[in-house]
C-alpha cells in the first residue's frame, strides 16, 4: 500500500513536470516507474540527423516513443509484435521493426524514419519517387514500412535484382496485396539512383 501511494505521488509529480518537457502530456508505463528514476528516463535519440531529447520508460518501444512522444506518426503500428513490418525504421541504415526495439537500447544509433528521407533540397527520395511513379501503395498503412525496407536495401545494394528486392521486402506484410507494385517501385527507385 505504501509503495502504491508513493508511486501515485510520483506519477502526479511527473505528470506536472513533464507536461512541458515531453511533447504532450502522455506518460507511458507509469506503473513501472521506481522513485528517483527520472534521470534514467531522459535520453537523447539521434533521429533523422537531429538530436531529439525525449523521456521514455524502461519498457517503452521505439515505435511508441516515435509516434507518441515525438509526433513522428509516419511510423505505423499494425501488429505491435513483430509480425508485419509496418513500423520498420532504419538503425544505421539497417531495417528494424521499431515495435520490437526498446527505446533505451538505441541511444547510440542513427535512427531514420520515413519522415527523414527527403533530400536536403526537400525533394522526395528515390524510393519515394519510385513508389509514386509505380503507384505502389494502396491503403498506405504498410507503406512507410515498405519504404524503409526498400531504403535499407538500396543503401546496402543500389542495384538489386528483382529477386533480391523481393527478399528484402519479405518482412513487410501488405494486406492489399500490392506486392508486385512495390517491387516495381523498388526497381524504379534503383533506376532513378543510377
Amino acid at each position, binding site marked *: 500500500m505504501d509503495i502504491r501511494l508513493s508511486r501515485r505521488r510520483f*506519477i*502526479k509529480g511527473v*505528470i506536472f513536470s513533464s507536461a512541458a518537457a515531453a511533447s*504532450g*502530456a*502522455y*506518460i*507511458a*508505463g*507509469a*506503473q513501472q516507474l521506481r522513485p528517483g528514476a527520472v534521470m534514467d528516463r531522459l535520453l537523447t535519440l539521434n533521429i533523422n540527423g537531429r538530436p531529439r531529447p525525449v523521456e521514455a520508460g524502461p519498457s517503452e518501444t521505439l515505435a511508441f516513443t516515435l*509516434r507518441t512522444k515525438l509526433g*513522428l*506518426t*509516419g*511510423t*505505423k503500428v*499494425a*501488429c*505491435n509484435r513483430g*509480425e*508485419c513490418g*509496418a513500423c520498420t525504421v532504419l538503425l544505421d541504415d539497417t531495417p528494424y521493426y521499431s515495435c520490437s526495439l526498446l527505446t533505451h537500447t538505441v541511444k547510440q544509433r542513427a535512427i531514420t*524514419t*520515413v*519522415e527523414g*528521407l*527527403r533530400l536536403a533540397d526537400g525533394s*522526395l527520395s528515390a*524510393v*519515394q519517387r519510385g*513508389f*509514386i511513379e*509505380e*503507384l*505502389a*501503395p*494502396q*491503403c*498506405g*498503412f504498410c*507503406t*512507410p514500412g515498405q*519504404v524503409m525496407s526498400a531504403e535499407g536495401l538500396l543503401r546496402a545494394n543500389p542495384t538489386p535484382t*528483382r529477386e533480391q528486392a*523481393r527478399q528484402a*521486402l*519479405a518482412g*513487410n*506484410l*501488405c*494486406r*492489399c*496485396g*500490392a*506486392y*508486385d*507494385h*512495390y*517491387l516495381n517501385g523498388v526497381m524504379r527507385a534503383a533506376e532513378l539512383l543510377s
Partner: protein
Amino acid sequence: MTFKHIGRDFTPPDVEGKVTGAARYVEDFQPEGLVYARLYTSPMPSGRVVNIDARQALRMDGVLGIITAADLPPSSAPDNPMLASEDVTYIGQPILAVAATTDAIAEEALGRIRVDFERRDFVTDPLESLAEGGPDAYPDGNVLRQAAPLADENATIRGGISRIKWPAAEVEKFRRGEEPQGVEFADGWTYGELEAGFAESEVIVEESFVTAGTPHHCLEPRSSMAYWENGKCYFYGSLQSQSAVNEGLAEMLGIEPENLCVIAENAGGGFGSKARAYPVMGVCGHFARMLNRPVQLRVTREEEFYIGVGRPGMQGWIKAGVRADGTVAAMDVIIISDGGPTGRNSASASAQHLSVVYTPTAMRLRNIPVFTNTAPRGAQRGPGQNEMSAAIAPIMDKAARGLGMDRVALRRINAPHSESPVYENRGPVTSAFLGEALDMASEMFDWEGRQARSGQRNGSKVRGLGVGLGYHSAGNNGYDGLVRIAPDGRVYLHSGVGNLGTYSYAATTRAAAEVLQVPWENCEIVCGNTDLHLPNSSVQGGSNTIFTHTRANWVAAEDAVAKLKEIAAMQFGGEAAEYEIDGARVFRADNADQELTYGEAAALAIEAGGRYSGEEYPDDIHPITRRAVQGVAGSGLIGVARDNLPKRGIAPGLCVGMVEIDVDLETGKIDLLDFAAVADCGTIVHPKGLSQQINGGAVWGFGMAASERHVYDPQNALPAGVGFYQAKLPTILDVPSVMHNGAVDIPDPDNPAGARGVGEPSQGCAVAAVASAISDALGGHLFNRVPVTPDMIVNHAHGSEQEARLLALNTF
C-alpha cells in the same frame, strides 16, 4: 470515344502522403486533452454478464471512467451490440471500455476490473448445431430468420432467431456429400425446370464443399477518436466510405446527421469491413460525450481479429448437370452458412455467382444461416461470389473432364454475354464480355501451349494449371455529384466516396474533369471530412465506385457546363446552345471573342445567385448533398445533380484468372509460378489503379486458396488465428514475382465513361484458378474445400485419411 482523362494514369493526391508518412490515420490524430480508451473483451464464447465490479479500476489515478452496455441504447440479439451484456456470444466480444489519461493506465485498469459471467452452451460448427440435440449459439435458437433481403451487401443484417434441426442421419448424409431428404431450410429461390435440366444432362456432378471463414485483418486496426463541441460530434474513423457512414453513425449516437462530422482521410484497409458505421464506433462516440473529452478508443491487433468481422464460412452441396454440348442445364445448391453470432451470410450472392458465370438454364438454392459462437461476420471482398468461385471451379473441371472437354472451353460456352439473363429474377445485365476476357486470357497465358505441362513430375513436385472466373455486381446508380468552379478558375471536385486505397475516389472525379474538359492541374479533389461539404455517395465497396461515381460526377459536371453556357448567354445574348467550352473558357461558337473564362463565369454565377451559385438546387438530391450545397452556396458556380441516367440491369464486374503451380507432394507446399488475369470491366479508367486491383485481388485469392482460415478450438471456442502469422496472410514470397493482367476494355453502354468495377472478381478468379490448378496437378482429385493446406496435400499424396471430419468448419 477519345478521352482526355479517362483511361490515363495520374498521380492521386494522397499517394505522396503515403510514402512520406504525412498521410494521417486515426491514431495519428492526437489533439490536446486526448484520453485513451481500451476494451475489456469477453473471455468466454457464450453467456451473460452478471456483474461488473470496476471499483478498483476507478480508484486508480488517471482513470476517468468506464462505459458499459447500460450506458448505451438497448440492443437485442442477434444484432451486433456496441457492448454486450445479456447475450455474450463470442470470445473477444467487447463488454466495456475504460478511459484513462494514458493508454498504459487504461490497460492496467482493465486488469483490475472483475466481470462475472453466467456460462451458456456454445457451438463452433454449424452442422453440429443443425443436428438434433446439438448446441445452439443463442438460448432461443440457432438460425437467423432474415427479416428482408439485404438492401446491399454492406447493409446491417436484420432478423430474428429461430430454430431448425435436422435428424442426425440427414446431417451425416450431407457430410458425405449427399442430398439430405425431408429437411427444413430457412430460405432459398429457384428458377427454371430443374428436373428437366438434369434429365437432359450428359454429365451430372454431385459434390460437397466447404469454404472456410476468413478474417479481414485490415492492417490498420479499427481504432476511432471522437470529441463533441456544442452538441456536434467530430468523429475520426478508420472507414472505407465517407458519406455512406453518416446516417448509420448518427443513429448509433442518437443525433441528427447534421450534428455529425466524419473525418476519414485514409483507411488502413477495409475490404468490406469498414464500409458502414460499425458497433465499436458507437462506443467511442458515446464515451467521448460522457467524459466530455476527446477519446481515442484503441483497438489492438488481437481485438481487430475479434471485432474486425470476417467472411462467413460455407458447408454445401451442389449437383450440376451439363449437356453434351457443354452448356450447363441445371444447378442445385444447398448452402449452410456460418454466420457467427450475427448470422451474416452470403448464400444468395454465392448462388447468384453461379447464375452469372455458368448461366445454367435452371437453378435452385436452399440455404440456412446458422449462428455460431465465433467472430461476427460481415461483407468481405466479393462476399459470397468469391468463396463460391473457389468451391465450384474444381467441380466444373470434373464436369469438363467427364465430357472430354477443355476446362476453358466449358467456361467459354457458358460465359454470359450482354443479353444473358442473370440471377433468380432472370434480369438483364448492362453488358458482359466474359467470353472475350476468356479468349484474351487464354492468349496472354498461352493456355493451350501450356497444357502439355499439366501433371508433369519434377522430383517431388507436380505441375498444375488452373482457370478461374470471378464475378461481382459492379455498379449502382442514384447517387449525387457536386462540382464547384471558383472565381479563380479552379475546379473543386467534391467526393463523398471515401478513401479505401483503390484511388477510385479520385479516378471517378476525373469524369467531371472530362466533361468540363479542364486540365487536371486546375482541379482539386475535396474529400475526407463531412464539413468540407461532400455529396451523398455510395459505400466505397462492392466494386461499385468506378461505375456509380463516374456517373454521378458526369451528371454534376454536365450541370456545371449547362450553367456556364447559360451565364455566357446572359452576358452576351443568344441561347445557351450557341455556346461551347474548351476547358478554360465558355465562348460563342460563331464568335469566339464573346468569351468568359471559367473564373469569370463563376464570379457572374455568384452575382446571378439562385441555382447558379447553389442557393437553389434540384429537389431530388439527397439531404446529405443538400447540406453540402448549402455549405458551398455563393462561393462559385455550382454543378450538382442526382444520377438519373438509365441503367437497364446488373452491371457485372467479371474477371478471368489463369495460374500455373507446382504442388510438392512431400511438403504439401504450393508454388505459384505464373499468374495472369483479364478483366471485363468496361472502359479502363485508371490503368495503374486497375492493375493494383487485379493483382491485389489475386493475392487475396491466393490466401483464400491455400492458407487463410478461421480456426477455433471446438472444446473452448478459442480462436487460433488472431495474429497475422496464424491467419495466415500471403507474404511477398507467397506470390509470383511478376503478375500479368489486362482488360478487354469494351465500353459499357450504361456508363458515360464506359466503365464498370472489378475490385472483387479479381480475388474470385484467382482463388478459383488455384483451386482448379491443385485439382489438375493431382489428376482431378477434389478436396472439396478451401483453403487446401499442406497437410491435406501430404495426406492425399500418401493415401492417409484427412484429419478434418467431413465438412467440418472452423477447425483444422
